């Protein structure tokens, strides 16, 4: 029980302390860098396998759906359907 509370408190402080206050050091490119990194690590699991081809094909569907519709949710849904079908 206590380790769970420590984990919860530590996680909260990691999120809050660097964010508090109105001024602080410029974040530079931390946001974009983290978003690109999160995409790559979530899409392609190690080790490389045939799943990468399936993932790439479904990502193409997501991209095309986004280009045609500009709708975030719809594009994600179509990508999920494509991934399940491929």
């Amino acid at each position: 029980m206590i380790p769970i509370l420590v984990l919860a408190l530590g996680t909260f402080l990691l999120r809050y302390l660097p964010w508090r206050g109105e001024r602080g050091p410029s974040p530079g490119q931390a946001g974009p860098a983290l978003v690109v990194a999160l995409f790559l690590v979530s899409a392609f699991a190690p080790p490389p396998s045939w799943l990468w081809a399936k993932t790439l094909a479904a990502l193409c569907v997501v991209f095309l759906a986004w280009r045609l519709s500009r709708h975030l949710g719809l594009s994600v849904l179509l990508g999920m359907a494509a991934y399940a079908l491929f």
Partner: protein
Amino acid sequence: MATFPSPTPSPLRQGLLAAWPVALGYFPVAVAFGMAGVGAGLAPWAVQLLSLLVFAGASQFAFLGLLAEGASPWLAAGVALLLNLRHAFYGPALRPYLAGHPLLAFFLTDEVFAVALKSLPGLPQAARTGFFLGLGLGAYLAWNLGTSLGAFGAAQLQELPGVGEGLSFALPALFLLLALPHLRNPVALGAGLLAFALHLLGQTAWGLVLAGVLGFLWRRP
């Protein structure tokens, strides 16, 4: 005098609506987490407590995994906290658009951060807090509802043909769309590829921390 509903949704509702792609991705992972937690020997209420208080998927899985391997709960909590180091970079990246607040910080997961970074700059200053709160609440509810289903018994959901597989692709699809505007930014791309290389070596958490540090230190040419 009759009153008419506002033609535009409140910022909180806008945030809740923006959360549904995140919720779609969270739900199956949370169901899997709930099932894994009970499988690791934790009581269902303890599994639910983790999701209610920590709200950080990867570190919750790491915590469970280490417990299942026989590690002490303190070591498991320490390793899970190391995994969450990357969260320290999210607040400063959002600060130009939204001042930090304890309640908002509680909801600051990877996905909430990425959606907020895309959406907040286009919103009026007055609407940003409500939007972020709605976004975070939507994600939090999905994560906890999924944990609850997994922990208290709904394994059949993942076994429906195609459903579990399709749902597992929701977060990569969402992250692709959020990353698209940044793929021509050489700093973001370089840091992302470095994180990916470490991910392939099994060091995903450190890769993400390194990407945050590099992005923080480098300035766009």
